[in-house]
C-alpha cells in the first residue's frame, strides 16, 4: 500500500509537468467537446487525433487520449440531459431521467449530480488501476506463450459475447480483423503476405488508415444518410446547486454505479456502455418505487453516469497489465502505444513506470479538470450544441485526410482510408458492427507469434494449451462464455440491454 502511494506520488510529478498538464487539459476539453456533440464519438475522435500524438512523447500521448475517452463520458451527459439526445452511447440511459429532470426545471441539478457522480467514480476507478495494476502485472509475468494465446482468445470471446448485435457476425468481424492484422511481413521468414504486390503494405496495413476509414469516413457517410438533423429544444439550466436532500439520496446510487462500472470496465468487451445500462437497470430493480424512474429520478442519472466513468478508467487495467484491449477504444490505445514502439503488457509497469503511474495520476487531475470544465463553463458547451452537422462533417473529413497522410507522408494511406471507409459503410449496412474488427486487427500478430512459440515448445502438440493450468483455466472460461450466449435467457437479456442503444 505504501509502495503504491509512493509510486502514485511519483506519477503526480510526471503528470504535473506543465507539458503533461497541458496534454491532459487538451484531452479533457476534446473529450467534453465530442461528448457534447452528437454524431462524433470517442473512437472516431481518437482515430482522428492519432496522427497528432505521433509528434508527442508516449506518456503525453496516452494521457491526452485517455482524457478524451473519460472526458467524453462527462460531455455525453450534458446533451442527454439538456436536449434528450445522448451525445454518446454511454449516456443513453442518462437521458431517460436526466431530461425529465430538465423538463421539471431541475436541469442544473441533474448536470451537477452527473458531474459529481462521474468525478467520484473516476477517482475510485483510477485508484483501482493503481491497486490492481501491479499484482495483475505480476501474475501476467508468469504467463508463457500458450497462456498468452488463451488469454487473447478469452479476450476476443468476451468481446463478442458482450458486443452489440449478432454474436455470429461479431466473430466473423474478429476473424476479418485478424486476417487484416496479418497483412505484411511474416516475422519468421521475412516473406510478405497478402500485400498484392503493394510495397506500402509490407509493414502491414496502417492502423490509422483502418481506424479512420472504419470509424471516421464510414460514420460521416452513415450520419449524412440519416437526414433531418435531430434538433431539440435546449432546456434551461437553472441552479447548478443540487439540494442536500438530493445529494444524500443519490449517495448510494453513485456507489453502486461505481462498483458496477469498475467490474464492467475490467471485464473484456464490457466497457462503459454496458456498465451504464446495467447500473440503470439495477437502480430501477432495487428502488422502493420503480415508477419514479423515467419521471426524473436523480438516482437514474447518478448511477449510470458514475458507472460509465468508472468503466472508462478501469478498462485501462487489462490494457496496461495484460496487453489485452477490452473495446475498440482500448484497441486504439494499443495502436497509439505501438506507434511509439511500446508493447502494452506487463512490461509497461517495469519498463515504463513513468507512463503507467503518470497516466493514473493524470486521471485524478483530469477528472478534477472535467468537473471545472463541465460545471462552471456549462454555458459554453451549450452554445456548441448549436453547431450543425453540416459544418462538423467537413471538419472531420479534412482532418481525416491530412491526418492520415501525415503519418507516413503517404498518398497510398489516403486511398487505404478511402477503401476502409467504403468497407465500413458496407459492413454497417449489412448489420456487422466493425468494432470487433479493430480488436482482431490489433491481436492478429501477437496471437500468431504466441501460437507459433507454443507449438515449437510442445513440438507440434496442440494439447499444450490444455496442459498448462493457466491456459486451461482461460480456455474453460472462454468456452463457458460462448456456451452462455447460446442459452436462451442470457440471449434475451443481451437483446434487452442493447435494445435502446441502436437508437443512436
Amino acid at each position: 500500500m505504501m509502495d503504491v502511494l509512493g509510486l502514485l506520488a511519483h506519477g503526480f510529478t510526471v503528470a504535473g509537468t506543465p507539458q503533461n498538464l497541458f496534454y491532459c487539459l487538451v484531452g479533457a476539453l476534446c473529450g467534453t467537446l465530442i461528448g457534447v456533440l452528437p454524431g462524433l464519438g470517442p473512437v472516431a475522435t481518437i482515430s482522428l487525433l492519432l496522427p497528432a500524438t505521433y509528434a508527442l512523447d508516449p506518456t503525453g500521448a496516452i494521457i491526452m487520449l485517455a482524457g478524451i475517452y473519460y472526458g467524453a463520458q462527462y460531455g455525453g451527459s450534458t446533451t442527454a440531459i439538456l436536449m434528450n439526445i445522448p451525445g454518446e452511447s454511454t449516456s443513453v440511459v442518462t437521458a431517460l431521467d436526466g431530461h425529465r429532470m430538465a423538463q421539471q426545471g431541475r436541469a442544473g441539478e441533474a448536470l451537477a449530480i452527473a458531474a459529481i457522480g462521474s468525478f467520484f467514480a473516476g477517482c475510485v476507478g483510477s485508484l483501482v488501476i493503481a491497486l490492481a495494476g501491479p499484482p495483475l502485472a505480476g501474475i501476467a509475468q508468469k504467463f508463457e506463450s500458450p497462456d498468452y494465446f488463451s488469454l487473447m482468445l478469452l479476450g476476443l470471446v468476451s468481446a463478442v459475447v458482450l458486443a452489440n448485435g449478432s454474436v455470429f457476425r461479431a466473430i466473423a468481424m474478429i476473424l476479418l480483423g485478424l486476417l487484416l492484422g496479418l497483412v505484411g511481413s511474416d516475422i519468421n521468414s521475412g516473406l510478405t503476405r497478402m500485400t498484392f504486390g503493394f510495397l506500402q503494405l509490407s509493414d502491414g496495413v496502417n492502423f490509422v488508415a483502418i481506424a479512420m476509414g472504419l470509424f471516421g469516413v464510414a460514420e460521416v457517410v452513415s450520419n449524412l444518410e440519416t437526414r433531418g438533423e435531430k434538433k431539440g429544444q435546449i432546456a434551461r439550466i437553472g441552479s447548478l446547486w443540487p439540494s442536500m436532500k438530493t445529494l444524500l439520496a443519490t449517495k448510494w446510487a453513485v456507489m453502486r454505479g461505481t462498483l458496477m462500472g469498475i467490474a464492467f470496465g475490467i471485464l473484456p468487451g464490457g466497457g462503459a456502455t454496458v456498465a451504464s445500462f446495467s447500473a440503470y437497470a439495477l437502480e430501477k430493480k432495487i428502488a422502493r418505487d420503480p415508477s419514479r424512474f423515467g419521471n426524473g429520478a436523480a438516482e437514474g442519472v447518478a448511477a449510470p453516469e458514475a458507472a460509465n466513468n468508472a468503466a472508462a478508467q478501469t478498462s485501462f487495467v487489462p490494457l496496461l497489465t495484460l496487453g489485452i484491449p477490452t473495446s475498440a477504444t482500448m484497441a486504439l490505445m494499443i495502436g497509439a502505444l505501438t506507434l511509439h514502439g511500446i508493447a502494452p503488457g506487463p512490461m509497461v509497469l517495469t519498463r515504463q513506470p513513468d507512463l503507467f503511474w503518470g497516466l493514473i495520476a493524470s486521471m485524478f487531475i483530469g477528472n478534477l479538470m472535467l468537473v471545472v470544465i463541465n460545471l462552471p463553463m456549462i454555458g459554453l458547451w451549450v452554445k456548441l450544441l448549436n453547431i450543425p452537422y453540416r459544418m462538423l462533417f467537413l471538419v472531420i473529413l479534412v482532418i481525416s485526410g491530412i491526418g492520415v497522410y501525415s503519418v507516413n507522408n503517404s498518398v497510398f494511406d489516403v486511398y487505404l482510408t478511402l477503401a476502409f471507409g467504403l468497407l465500413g459503410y458496407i459492413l454497417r449496412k449489412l448489420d456487422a458492427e466493425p468494432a470487433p474488427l479493430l480488436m482482431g486487427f490489433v491481436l492478429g500478430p501477437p496471437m500468431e507469434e504466441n501460437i507459433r512459440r507454443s507449438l515449437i515448445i510442445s513440438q507440434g502438440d496442440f494439447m499444450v494449451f490444455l496442459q498448462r493450468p493457466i491456459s486451461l483455466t482461460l480456455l474453460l472460461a472462454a468456452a463457458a462464455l460462448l456456451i452462455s450466449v447460446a442459452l436462451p435467457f442470457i440471449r434475451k437479456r443481451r437483446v434487452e440491454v442493447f435494445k435502446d442503444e441502436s437508437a443512436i
Partner: protein
Amino acid sequence: MNGAFWRGNIDFYCGLLLLSISALAIWTVSELDFGTAQEMGPAYFPLVVAGLLGAMSLFMIVKGLLTRGEAVGHIEVRPLFFILASFLAFGLLVQPAGLIIAIVTQVALAHFASPDTRVIESILFALGLAVFSAVVFVHLLGIPVSLFP
C-alpha cells in the same frame, strides 16, 4: 421469395462479401509455405483464419438463401459518392497541387454530399480548414508537403 424478384438479404450479402475476402486471402497466401504445426510457415495462421472466415461466410450465405431475413437498408448514393470522391480528390491533389488546393477541392466536393450545406459556410470552412491544416500540420508538426503547386 414467393414469386416476386428475390432481392437477397443482409445475411446473404454479408456472407458473399466475407467469402470473397477470405477466398482472396486464401488465394494470395496459397503460394507460400504452409509448414507444420511445429514449424508454422508464413501461410499457416492466415490460412486457418481465412478458412474459418470462409466457413462462417458460407453458413451466412446458406442461411440467407433459406430464410427470409432482413432486407439491406436503403443506400443513398449521394453522400457515399461525394464523400468518397472528396477523399479521392485530396489524395490525387495533395502532392502535385499542394495542400491548399487539395483541401479546398476536398471541401468543395464534400459540400454536395449533403443537401443541408450552404455555399457561403462551405467556402468559409474550406478556407479556414486549409489555413488551419497549413498552420498545424505543416508549420507545427512539420510534415513535408508543399502548400502550393
